[in-house]
Structure formats: structure tokens, C-alpha cells
């Protein structure tokens, strides 16, 4: 009976160890790199971690985008599907939102259509895998690069701003999502939208049939089929949702933050992949993702602060994130460690 009561302990403690351990590993390596490059690691790390808080609005706004791309990785992952196409979905969503906003002047319509464009892309990737057996990693990467160049082409050749040719046309004033006053400070509306999106995702996943089928299919496709649930349908649904949120990320970026797209896609580039780290750290749970996206945003902005203050390269933050992701891929190792310690205890006390 000793086994029964302790499952919660094992599960929660191994999750805690995994997350804490990965972060610790990342910090350790980040500090080492700083030291190697000749900077003060302590000062650098503290700037890295705390520097983001000098502008909370900016911090939360940035977190918005990776919160959405985090959802876009997490939801298909729960269905057992690997979605690394968030970059392409984001670019597409952003472009569609821009064009729709310019032509209709309506932010809501632009948001919706941008998100739907992302959803369509997600469905495409899923359909190719489900019906033709094409590996989703390859499809996603190919589409990412394709859309990267296509969007740049459109921004520079067709939708450019004649006064600033390296930028696209701007979102008309009436279609912009703005800023509001909150508790003595200001906050971008997009952050609230992202919180609403997270709540929606949580509801869908844990309180609806759709979410139940996604989770069951991901955990045990055989059991799903036994119950009459179609894992294929669950995958398609999950990718539609995944694409929706990634498209939303791009749309929010354009309509509520930058108000244009530049010809190097600097405002959006890389956030699709950041979303993967966010999702991993948030354990593919929408609520966890809300927190981990703020954490990652903190790191990114901390990196920028560190660069301004100490002249250290901000890509150290990227490297740090990379280490955290690698460390988070070791769930078995942690579980093994916890069990090993318990077994030692049991055998000795035999």
C-alpha cells in the first residue's frame, strides 16, 4: 500500500525537478558562456533575468506572441502530432490580417481571417500526414521557408509603403488594437486577448468532447479506436486549433503591436520556435504556457537589456533557451532518477 499514496508525490516532484533542473542547467551554461566571453556572469545573469521587468507592458506584450505559438505546439502535441509550422502560420496570419485591415478597416474581421488562414495551413499539414503519410516535420519546415519568402516578396513588391519601402503599408488607425490604462500603468490589449485565448484553449481541452478526443488519441491511439474515437480526426482538429492560435499570434503582432510588417520579418521571426520551448516548459498545458511564455519573454528582454547595459550579445539568451529546451527533452531521465532513489531506499530497508 506504500505505492498508492505516493503517486502524487512522484508526479509532482518529477515535474518540479524537470522544470527547475532545466532552468538551472540553462542558467549555468549561460553564465559560463558570459564568463568565457569575458563578462561578469553574475551581473549578466541578473540583468538577463530581471532586465525584462523595467517595462512590464512590453514584457507582457511580447509574451503574447509566444503564448499563442506555445499553444500552437502544445495542442497538436497532446494529440500526438508534431507541429513546428508555427512560423509559417504566423507569417501568413500576420499578412492576411494586414491586408484585410487595410481593405476593410475592421480589426475584428482581420483577426478572425488571420487566425483562420493559420488554421487552414495547420489543416493542410495534418491532412498531408493523415491522408498521404507525409512526415509533418518536413512539410512544416518547407512551408515555413516558403511562406517566409513569399511574405517578404509580397511586402516588398506589392504591399510596400512608398514612404518607407522596406516596410509594408501600415494598419489604418481605426483597425488598430490599442493600449489601455490599467492600475496606474498601460497595457496592450493584445495581452488580454492572449489570456482569453489561453482560457479558451484550456476550456476546449479539458471540458469538451473535442479536447477529450484529442487527449485520448494522443495518449493511446489504440484505446481511442476501441472507444470509437478517430485519432485521425483528433489530429486534424488539433492542427486546425494549432494553426488558429499561431495565425492569431501573427495577426495580433500586426494589428496590435507593430502595425506593419518589415521586409526582414524581424518582428515575428523565431517566435514560432520559441513557442516550442514555451510549450515544453509549460508541460503542454495552457495554464502552464501562460506562465512559461512570460518567463521566456523575460529572458529575451533581459538579453536585450544586458546588451544595452553591458554590451554583451543578446544571443546568449537564445543559447540559454536552447539549453533549457534540450534539458526539457529528458523526462525519462528525471523519472529514472526519482525511481532509482526510491528503490535504493526500498532494497536497503528490506
Amino acid at each position, binding site marked *: 500500500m506504500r505505492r498508492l499514496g505516493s503517486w502524487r508525490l512522484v508526479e509532482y516532484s518529477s515535474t518540479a525537478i524537470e522544470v527547475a533542473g532545466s532552468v538551472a542547467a540553462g542558467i549555468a551554461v549561460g553564465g559560463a*558562456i558570459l564568463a568565457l*566571453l569575458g563578462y561578469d556572469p553574475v551581473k549578466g545573469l541578473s540583468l538577463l533575468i530581471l532586465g525584462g521587468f523595467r517595462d512590464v507592458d512590453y514584457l507582457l506584450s511580447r509574451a503574447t506572441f509566444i503564448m499563442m505559438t506555445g499553444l500552437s505546439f502544445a495542442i497538436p502535441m497532446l494529440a500526438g502530432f*508534431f507541429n*513546428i509550422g508555427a512560423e509559417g502560420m504566423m507569417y501568413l496570419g500576420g499578412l492576411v490580417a494586414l491586408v484585410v485591415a487595410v481593405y476593410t478597416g475592421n480589426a475584428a474581421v482581420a483577426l478572425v481571417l488571420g487566425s483562420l488562414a493559420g488554421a487552414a495551413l495547420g489543416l493542410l499539414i495534418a491532412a*498531408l500526414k493523415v491522408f*498521404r*503519410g*507525409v*512526415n509533418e*516535420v*518536413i*512539410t512544416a*519546415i*518547407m*512551408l515555413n*521557408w*516558403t511562406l517566409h*519568402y*513569399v511574405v*517578404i*516578396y509580397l511586402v*516588398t*513588391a506589392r504591399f510596400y509603403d512608398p514612404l518607407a519601402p522596406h516596410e509594408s503599408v501600415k494598419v489604418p488607425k481605426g483597425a488598430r488594437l490599442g493600449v489601455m490604462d490599467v492600475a496606474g500603468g498601460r497595457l496592450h490589449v493584445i495581452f488580454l486577448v492572449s489570456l482569453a485565448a489561453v482560457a479558451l484553449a484550456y476550456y476546449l481541452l479539458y471540458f469538451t468532447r473535442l479536447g477529450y478526443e484529442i487527449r485520448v488519441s494522443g495518449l493511446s491511439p489504440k484505446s481511442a479506436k476501441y472507444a470509437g474515437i478517430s485519432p485521425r480526426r483528433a489530429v486534424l482538429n488539433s492542427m486546425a486549433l494549432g494553426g488558429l492560435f499561431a495565425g492569431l499570434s501573427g495577426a495580433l503582432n500586426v494589428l496590435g503591436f507593430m502595425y506593419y510588417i518589415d521586409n526582414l520579418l524581424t518582428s515575428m521571426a523565431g517566435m514560432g*520556435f520559441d513557442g*516550442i*520551448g514555451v510549450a*515544453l516548459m509549460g508541460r503542454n498545458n495552457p495554464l502552464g504556457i501562460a506562465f512559461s511564455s512570460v518567463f521566456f519573454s523575460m529572458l529575451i528582454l533581459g538579453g536585450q537589456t544586458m546588451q544595452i547595459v553591458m554590451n554583451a*550579445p543578446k*544571443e*546568449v539568451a*537564445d*543559447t*540559454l*533557451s*536552447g*539549453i533549457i*529546451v*534540450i*534539458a*526539457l*527533452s*529528458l*523526462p*525519462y*531521465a528525471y523519472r*529514472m532518477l526519482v525511481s532509482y532513489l526510491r528503490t535504493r531506499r526500498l532494497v536497503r530497508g528490506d
Partner: protein
Amino acid sequence: MIEEVADLGLLALTSMVPLLLGAVGEIVSERAGVVNIGIEGMFLLSALTSVIAEYYTGNLALSLLVGVATGVCVGVLHGAISVYLRGDQIVAGVGVNLFAYGVGVVSLITIWGTFGNSPSVPTIPKFMVLGRPISPMVPASILIAVGTWYLLFKTNTGLRIRACGEDPRAAEAMGVKVLRLRFLSVLYGAALAGLGGAYLSIDWVGQFTKEIAAGRGFIALANVAFSGWNPVVAIAGAYVFGVFDALAIHLSIVSMQPALAYLFKTIPYLGTLAVVVAFVRRARMPSSLGKPYIKE
């Protein structure tokens, strides 16, 4: 016109090399049961280190080796995570790519103080074929592919490697040290990826840029599946994808509008996608691919 086509055909040979090396190495790794999507990151890192080595030593052979060694080092990491620690192979690969990108840019800044490209370095001497410079790496990579085919299908070692990927439990019971053999296969793949990355910077382009890999690691992955996990077929596959690449480069140079260059750049990716979609035969994947081998 014929000259253009011939020229394109030869240029495709140049593009083929990294795609072939990456694919052949990954074929061995996947035949043993381990998938490595960090090939892209390995290309990037070894391209970087071999340029650094060349910049400071001027010794091309050494720099090539440094590139291979870099691949092996990353391979040790990926192998340790995927094989011994039973980690999630795909996620680990993604981590490698992120890490490599970050390190690449950081190094550019700290060593040369630039954000885009490293300075140019001398490249491997070429020999001339029909007026075009062709690197010795072209025939070398083809030889490596054929040699790997022989290894996998005509030797006992190859049989053991394939067993690890099909049914590791059975292989272990028959005396194959599955974990060790899988780890070594990962290193083999990593070494070839390192070679491919070194080729990119000190043979083809002549410098390191942060965009030097440009998705080639993933095209190599597409080639693995396309070739049905057969190194010899991978030669044909790599050449086909190389043609797409060559076409994109050629059109960007030839056309006058700079903006259109962006559209041309999508050719390798759309082409790869089209090929993969059209030719996805139900070629048998190694049965235990991607699943960590857990004993107890």
C-alpha cells in the same frame, strides 16, 4: 540552351553534396532506430568551426576534420540524450537547432564583430569539368554513399545495425549491444553531417553566414524518407533536390528584378515538398524508429 542545362546540371552536383552526406549519415542513424532532426544545427555549427579553423590555421585538411569533429561532439550530446537517457528524440533535435543558431550568431559577434557574415576564407581547390569548378567532395560523397550501402546491406555489422532499428529487444537478446550500437550509429550520422557542414562553408560558399544552412538539414531528412532508407537511392534523391537548389540560384542571378529573387528562393522548398508528397511510397520505415529502447 544546352549549355545552360548542362551548367545547371553541374551546379546541382555542388548543391547535392550536403544533402547527400546529411541523408546518408541519417540513414544509418535511423536504420539503427534513432532520428536526428538536429542535422540543420550540425551543419551550422560545423560550418562555423571549420571556418574558424581555416581562418586561423589556413590548413584546409585540418579544418575539414574540425568540422567532422564538431559534428561528432554534437552527436555525442544527441546520442547521450536519445539513446542512454531515453529522451524525446525530436525535441532534443529541436533543442540542438536552437542552440546551434544561438551559438553561431554569438560567435560571429565575438570573433569578428559582425552580425551577418564571417570574412571569406580560401576554399578547397576544385577541378574543372566542362568549364565549371567541381569539388573533389562530389565524387567523395558519392563514394561514401556507396560504401555506406555496402556496410548496411552486405556486412554483419550492417545486419546488427538494422536489427536495432527493427526490433531492439530481439537484437539485444541475440547479443547485440543495442544501446552502444545505436550510439555509434548516431555518431556516424553526426560525423557525416559535420562533413557536410564543413563543405558548406570552406568548400562551397567560402565564408560562414548565419543563414548558411537554409533548411538544407531538413531537405536531407526528406531525402532519407524519399530514398526508402537506402544510401544509393539517396544519391539520386540528393541530386534531384540539388537541381531545385541550382534552379533557384540560377534564376535569382539571371532575372533582373531583385524582388522576384525571393520567390525563386522558394523553389527548393516547394520542390522538396512536391517530391515528397508525390513519391511517398509506403517504403518500410525501421519499425522501432524514434522509440527509445528501455530494458526493464
